[in-house]
C-alpha cells in the first residue's frame, strides 16, 4: 500500500461541509511506509465535524487486500499530477537520453510536490529487432532513476510509432508491412498510415504467424516480468496504447496538411484489404452487399470542410441516411471492439498487479458544433447530434475497470477558431458525463506538448470542483517545460492544485483540548460517532 494517500486523507477529513463522509483509507495499513510524515498522530481528525453531529464511517479495510488499486483514493479531491517524460527519454538505440537533465528535472518535480512522471515505452524500442527479443535496459535504468527520486511512475505502453519523436514501429514489423501493406490503415487514395497497425488485423496472424494481439500480449507479459519489482510500488499505473498516438481512434487526419488553419474533417480509414473484407462481410450479413463494397463515395477530403461534399452536410447529408448509419455503425463498432480486445488483454495481464489501467480517448473537438460531427465520425466515434457515441466506450472502459485519459483539458472554446465550429469544452463535458454514468474515472491531459497562456486557467477549472479529474498527465518535460517563460506558470499550477491542508501538528493541539474519546482504528469496519 502506498503512502500517497496520506495527504489526501487529510484533505478529505477537512471537507467538513459534507454531512457524511466516507473515509476510504487512512494510512494505517500494515507495511505502509509512513516514515516521514507525522501521520501517525493525525488520526481521526474530526474537530471540524464535531459540532455538527456528523457521522464518520470508516470503511472496512479488508476489501483492499483483494485489489488495492481499486480503492486508490476514490474520495480524494487531491489531484495526482504526473509529468510526462520526453517522448525520447529512451532513445531509439535504447539509451537514456538527456539523463542529466531528466535527473535534475525529476528532483525539481519531487521538490515541487508532483506525484510522479509518465514514461512512454515504445514497442519500436523494446522489441526493435525481432519478435520476442525484448530489450528493457534503457527503461529499467530510467525507472530506477524515478524510483530513487521517490516519484511514482505511470507507464504508457506505446504500440504505435511517432514521427515527432522519430521512433517508428519495430523494424521487423515494418519489414512485414513492406510485404503485406494491408496491416496498415489505408485511406481512399491508398495512402498508408505506418505508425500503427490496422485494427482490422488485430486477430489475424499477420506477424510471423502470430496475431498483433498475441504480440501485444507477449510484450505486456515481458514488461510485467521485467519490471515486477517496480509494479505496484513505483509503477502505479499503466496506459494501454490503443491506436495512433496511443489514442483510441482511426488515423483519420493522417493526410492533413499542417498549413490549413482550420482542420478539415479527415477521412475514413477503411481501405486496407482487411478492412474492406470486413466491410464486405458486414454488408452481406446485413443484407446490403452493395453497401459493403467501399466507403462512402461522397465524403470530403482531409482538409475539406463538412459542407464541401454531401456526406456530412448538416441538412440532408448522407450520414443521416440508412447507408450512413450502416457504414458509421460498422466503422465505429470496429473501434470499440478493438479497444475491448486490448483492454481485456491489459486487464488480464495486469489485473493481479497493483496498478491501475488507463487508456486514452481523444478529444476530437473539431466541427463539434455541426450536426454530423464529421471529425469524430472519421475518427471512429459515431457521435452526432442524434446519437451518443461515447456511452458505449465508457461502458466498455468500465467493464475492464479501465480509467480514461482525456486530453485537451487546457483547451477552451474561446481559444478555438470561430470557423472551425469546434467545442472542446462541450465535447469534454459529454465524454466526462458518459464516464460518470458508468463509473469510469477520468484523468486529464493537456493537448499539446506545452500549455499556452490561459490553458493553465482551464486546467485548474477541470481539476477543481465536484467532478475533478482524479489525476492529470502534464505533457511534457523538455526544454520549453523548464524554460523561464513556462516553468513558473507550471509551478503556480502545482501549488494551486494542492488542497489547503492543515498541518498535522496544527490539528493536534485542537484535538488535545477537546479530549474527546478516541476512536479505535484497527483494520475492521468501524463506525465512529462524534456527535
Amino acid at each position, binding site marked *: 500500500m502506498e503512502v500517497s494517500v496520506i495527504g489526501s486523507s487529510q484533505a478529505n477529513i477537512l471537507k467538513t461541509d459534507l454531512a457524511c463522509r466516507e473515509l476510504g483509507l487512512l494510512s494505517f495499513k500494515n507495511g505502509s511506509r509512513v516514515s516521514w510524515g507525522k501521520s501517525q498522530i493525525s488520526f481521526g481528525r474530526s474537530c471540524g465535524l464535531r459540532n455538527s453531529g456528523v457521522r464518520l464511517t470508516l470503511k472496512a479495510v479488508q476489501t483492499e487486500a483483494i485489489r488495492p488499486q481499486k480503492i486508490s483514493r476514490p474520495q480524494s479531491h487531491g489531484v495526482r499530477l504526473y509529468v510526462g517524460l520526453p517522448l525520447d527519454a529512451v532513445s531509439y538505440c535504447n*539509451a537514456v537520453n*538527456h539523463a542529466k*537533465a531528466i535527473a535534475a528535472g525529476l528532483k525539481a518535480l519531487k521538490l515541487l*510536490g508532483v506525484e510522479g512522471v509518465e514514461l512512454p515505452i515504445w514497442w519500436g524500442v523494446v522489441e526493435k529487432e525481432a519478435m520476442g527479443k525484448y530489450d528493457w535496459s534503457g527503461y529499467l535504468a530510467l525507472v530506477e532513476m524515478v524510483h530513487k527520486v521517490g516519484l511514482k511512475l505511470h507507464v504508457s505502453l506505446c504500440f504505435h510509432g511517432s514521427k515527432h519523436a522519430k521512433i517508428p514501429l519495430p523494424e521487423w514489423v515494418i519489414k512485414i508491412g513492406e510485404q503485406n501493406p494491408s496491416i496498415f490503415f489505408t485511406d481512399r487514395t491508398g495512402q498508408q498510415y505506418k505508425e500503427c497497425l490496422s485494427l482490422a488485423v488485430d486477430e489475424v496472424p499477420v506477424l510471423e504467424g502470430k496475431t498483433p494481439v498475441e504480440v501485444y500480449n507477449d510484450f505486456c507479459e515481458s514488461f510485467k516480468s521485467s519490471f515486477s519489482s517496480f509494479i505496484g510500488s513505483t509503477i502505479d499505473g499503466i496506459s494501454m496504447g490503443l491506436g495512433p498516438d496511443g489514442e483510441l481512434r482511426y488515423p483519420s487526419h493522417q493526410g492533413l496538411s499542417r498549413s490549413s488553419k482550420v482542420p478539415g474533417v479527415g477521412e475514413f480509414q477503411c481501405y486496407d484489404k482487411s478492412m474492406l473484407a470486413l466491410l464486405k462481410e458486414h454488408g452481406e450479413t446485413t443484407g446490403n452487399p452493395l453497401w459493403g463494397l467501399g466507403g462512402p463515395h461522397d465524403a470530403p477530403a482531409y482538409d475539406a470542410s463538412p459542407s464541401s461534399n454531401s456526406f456530412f452536410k448538416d441538412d440532408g447529408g448522407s450520414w443521416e441516411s440508412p447507408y450512413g448509419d450502416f457504414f458509421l455503425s460498422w466503422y465505429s463498432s470496429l473501434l470499440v471492439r478493438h479497444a475491448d480486445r486490448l483492454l481485456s488483454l491489459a486487464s488480464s495481464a495486469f489485473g493481479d498487479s497493483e496498478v491501475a489501467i488507463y487508456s486514452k480517448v481523444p478529444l476530437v473537438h473539431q466541427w463539434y458544433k455541426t450536426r454530423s460531427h464529421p471529425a469524430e465520425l472519421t475518427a471512429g466515434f459515431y457521435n452526432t447530434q442524434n446519437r451518443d457515441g461515447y456511452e458505449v466506450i465508457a461502458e466498455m472502459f468500465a467493464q475492464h475497470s479501465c480509467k480514461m485519459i482525456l486530453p485537451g483539458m487546457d483547451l477552451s472554446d474561446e481559444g478555438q477558431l470561430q470557423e472551425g465550429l469546434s467545442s472542446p469544452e462541450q465535447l469534454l463535458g459529454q465524454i466526462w458525463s458518459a464516464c460518470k454514468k458508468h463509473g469510469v474515472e477520468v484523468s486529464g491531459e493537456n493537448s499539446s506538448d506545452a500549455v499556452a497562456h490561459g490553458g493553465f486557467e482551464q486546467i485548474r477549472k477541470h481539476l477543481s470542483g465536484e467532478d475533478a479529474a482524479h489525476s492529470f498527465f502534464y505533457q511534457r*518535460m523538455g526544454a520549453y517545460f523548464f524554460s523561464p517563460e513556462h516553468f513558473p506558470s507550471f509551478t503556480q499550477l502545482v501549488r494551486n492544485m494542492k488542497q489547503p491542508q492543515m498541518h498535522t*501538528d496544527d490539528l493536534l*493541539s485542537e484535538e*488535545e483540548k477537546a479530549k474527546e474519546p478516541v476512536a479505535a482504528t484497527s483494520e475492521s469496519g468501524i463506525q465512529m460517532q462524534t456527535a
Partner: protein
Amino acid sequence: MSSAVSTEPLLHRSFREISRPRFRSSTLRPSPPPASLSCAPKSPSFRHARRRCASGSGPRRGGWGGAGAGALLRVRASSSGAAVVEALESADVLFQEAFPLQRTETAKGKIFVRLDQGKDGQNWQLTVGCTLAGKWILHWGISHVDDVGSEWDQPPAEMRPPGSIPIKDYAIETPLQKSSTSMDGDEVYEVNISIKSNSNIAAINFVLKDEESGSWYQHRGRDFKVPLMDSLQDDSNIVGSKRGFDLWPGALGQLSNILLKGEASDYKDKDASTDLEASKQEVRCLEGFYVEQPIVKVVSIRNSVNISVKICPKTAKTLVYLETDLPRDVIVHWGVCRDDSKKWEIPAAPYPPETEIFKNKALRTLLQPKEQGNGFWGSFALDEEFVGFLFVLKLKEEDVWLNCMGEDFYIPVSSTRSSSLIRQKESDSTETSGKTMETNTEVSSTAYTDDIINEIRNLVSDISSEKSRKTKTKEAQESILQEIEKLAAEAYSIFRSSLPTFSAEAVLEQEALEPPPHICSGTGTGFEILCQGFNWESNKSGRWYKELMEKASQLASLGFTVVWLPPPTDSVSPEGYMPRDLYNLNSRYGTIDELKDLVKKFHEVNIRVLGDVVLNHRCAQYQNQNGIWNIFGGRLNWDDRAVVADDPHFQVGRGNKSSGDNFHAAPNIDHSQDFVRKDLKEWLHWLRSEIGYDGWRLDFVRGFWGGYVKDYLDASEPYFAVGEYWDSLSYTYGEMDHNQDAHRQRIIDWINATNGTAGAFDVTTKGILHAALERCEYWRLSDQKGKPPGVVGWWPSRAVTFVENHDTGSTQGHWRFPSGKEMQGYAYILTHPGTPAVFYDHIFSHYQSEIGSLISIRNRNKIHCRSTIKITKAERDVYAAIIDDKVAMKIGPGYYEPQSGPQKWSPVLEGRDYKVWETS
C-alpha cells in the same frame, strides 16, 4: 507599561550567520500561528542542513558531530540523580546519545531611556539601556538647533563615551556596557551620554542595534529621538536654545510618563518628528524623564535530550532513559516500532507515571523534574520484541514540538542491533560518536537516499500545504523554491543544448545520481545588498586596501552585506584587469597581507567579500619564439596551448577555438583545456582558503562558455557569484528599442549555462533606465507583459541590478548613468527585486544619506531578490510600482500617489523625482 509599542527588529543581518552549524531544522514543525515565538527555520541555516545531507555524509552527521562527544559524558554524569540509576548501572549500555534540540524563544525585555540632570545641576545625562542580553550598540547622532530636516550630525567629541566609533560624519556607534546594577533581576546593558547644558544640541537621535542578531531596534519604525529643546519646529531657534537651558528645572530623576502618553496618542505622520518628540513639545522645558519600551528578541536556544538504552537484567526489558535540560514541563509523545518501517505502535502497559494514551496511536508521558531542578527525565521500559523507540517532545504549555531534524526521534533499542553498533563504534575509534547515530540510521533500514527523499517529502508537504505554509516562514520555502529553480535551470540548459547522449553517458549518469550533487548556493540568501568597493582610480594611492578598511564599519552600518573588491592579482594594467601572475596578490591596491586584513575586517563587520576574478584572459610574461607574448610565468607557467586558437591578436595560441567572444587586449584563455580548468579551479580554491573570499565577481564572462563557469563555481563553492555579461542593447535608427528581450535573453542564457550557479549584472535594466530617465520615457520600464523589462523581470533571483560601475562611470565613463538622476536609479534598484549593487562613488557622495535611507527601507521591509512587484504606472513621465505590498515607489517628474486600500501608505523618503512610501 500598558500600551505595547512594537519595535521591529530588522533582521537582515541574521541571515548571514551560517558559519557555525545550527540545527534549526529541529524546529521545522512550528507551533500554530497564534504562538508568537517563531521557531521556524531561517533559510541559510536550513539550507546549511540540506547541504550537509546533499554532500553525501548523511543528513545527520553534521548534526551529531561534536554534540555527541560531550553528550556521552553528560549522560553518565546526570544519571546519578535519577531514580532508575540502579537498574541502569547494572546493565550494559546499548546506546547512548545526546541530541541537540534547537528551538527559539522570545525573550522579552525592555529598552529604557532616561534623562536626568547631572550632579552639578548643569549637565544632563542620557542613559539608554536594555535588559536583554546581547551585544548592544547604540547607533546615534544629534540634531543641531538650526538643522532642517532629519539629518544627523556627529556629536562633539566630549560627548562621545569611551569606546565610540564614528560612522562617517553623521553618527557614532557606542557599545552598551553591562551595568553593575540590575533591574528586576535582569542584567542591564546601558550607555551614558552626558550633555553639556550650553551646547546647541536640539535632540539626540538613536537606534539600538544588537550585533549578535544583527537586529535593529527602532521606535515605531523610526529613530528614537530625545529632544533636548522644546519645539524643534519653532522658528525661535536660537532663543529657544538659550531659554531652554536657562529654564531647565532641577527636576532630577523625576519620572515622567508624558512621553508614554505621547506614544499612545495619535501618530502624526506628517510631522518629521516622532511621538517622543511630539509629546515633548507640549512641555515647554526640559525635564528629566524615564521611559521604557518593551522589546522582544527571538533567541535561539539549544537544549539537548540525552538518551541511553540499557537492558535491565532482572526483567529482561529494555530501559530507555531520557533526560533533557528543557526548562519547562515536557511531554514525550512516544511509541515503539517492531520493524524498520518505523510504524508507531503502543506497547502494552504498564506505562510510566503520568502517561496517557493519545488517540490510540501514541503515548504521552509527562517527564519528571530532576531533583536538582535543572531539567526533566523519564524512563521507559520496553519489551524485547520492539526494535525502536520513537518520540517527539512537546513543551507542555506551548505548542512547540521538538523533533529530530524534521523527523521523529528514532532510538534503536533491539539489543543485538545496538550492541553490534557499539562494537562497531569501538573498533573504529577515530570516528566521533556522531558517527553512531549515522550508523544507526543506516542499520535501522532507512537507507541514505530514503532519508533524503523523506526530507524532501517533508519539505514538499511543507510547501504544498497552504495552511502550514502560513505557519512556516517564507524563508524556508524560499530555499526550497530556490532549489527547484536551480534544478529547473539545470534541466533547461541541458535540454536546450541537448545533443542526445548515448549509453556511455547514461551509465555515467547513474553514478552521478547516487549522491545528489553537492549544492552550493552561489546566489546567497536573497537579501544581499552589494557595494562595489572601488572605482577606476582606487589603484592610484597604492594603499586602497588600507583606505577601504577604514570604511568597513561604515559600509556595514549603511546596510551593505557584500562588498566587491578590485581584482587582486599582479596585473599589467594598474587597475588589475590584465592579470599576469595569478598567485601574486601584491597589486597596486596593496599587498596580499593588507588584502587579508581587509577581508578579515569585512568579515568582522559581517560583510561578505567578493573577489574580482579575471578568468577570460591572462597576460603572458614571455614571448614565444615568434615574438608573440603568450608564454606565461609565475606558478601557472602555461604555454601557448592555454591560449585560444582563434584569438586574432595572439594567434599563435594552440588551444581550441574560443567558446565565447574575444577580449582583444590580452591572450584569451582556452577553458576547454583540462589543465587550464584544473589550474583555475585550484587557484579559486586557493583564493577562497588563503584570502577568505566568499564569492566572485566574474570579469568579462562573455568571453567563455557559461558551462565552464559552472565548473569553476562548483569547485570553489562561493556564497555569492555574479558575472559581468555586458553587450550592447538593441537600437533601431539610434533609438533604443522598447523590447530588449533579446538582450536579456542573452544574459539569461549565460546564467542558464552556469546552471543558475551565478547571477549576472542586469545590464538590460541599466540600459533601459538610461533611456527612460534621459528621454523622459518612463513607459519603457514596463515590458509587454507588465513586468520589469530587464533581467530582473525574468529571473530576479539571478539579476544583480546596478546603476554604475568602474567601467561605465568613474573616470572612464564608458556608459555613464544620466547625470543627476542617479538617485532615481537607486530608488528603482533598491526597492525592486533582484540583488542591488551600489557603486562606491555614489556611496561616498552627497547621495549617501539617501542611499542609506533606501537601503534601510529595503531592509526594514525585508525586500529580497524574489520580492513580488506590481507595476502600477508606466507612463511618459512617471513610473510607479508596489513591491511586496509593503513598499510603493515612483520615479519621474509625473504625479503618482499609491492608492490607499486596505493598507495605508505613508511617504518615507522623497528626493529629486522620486518618492517612496511604506504601508503604515
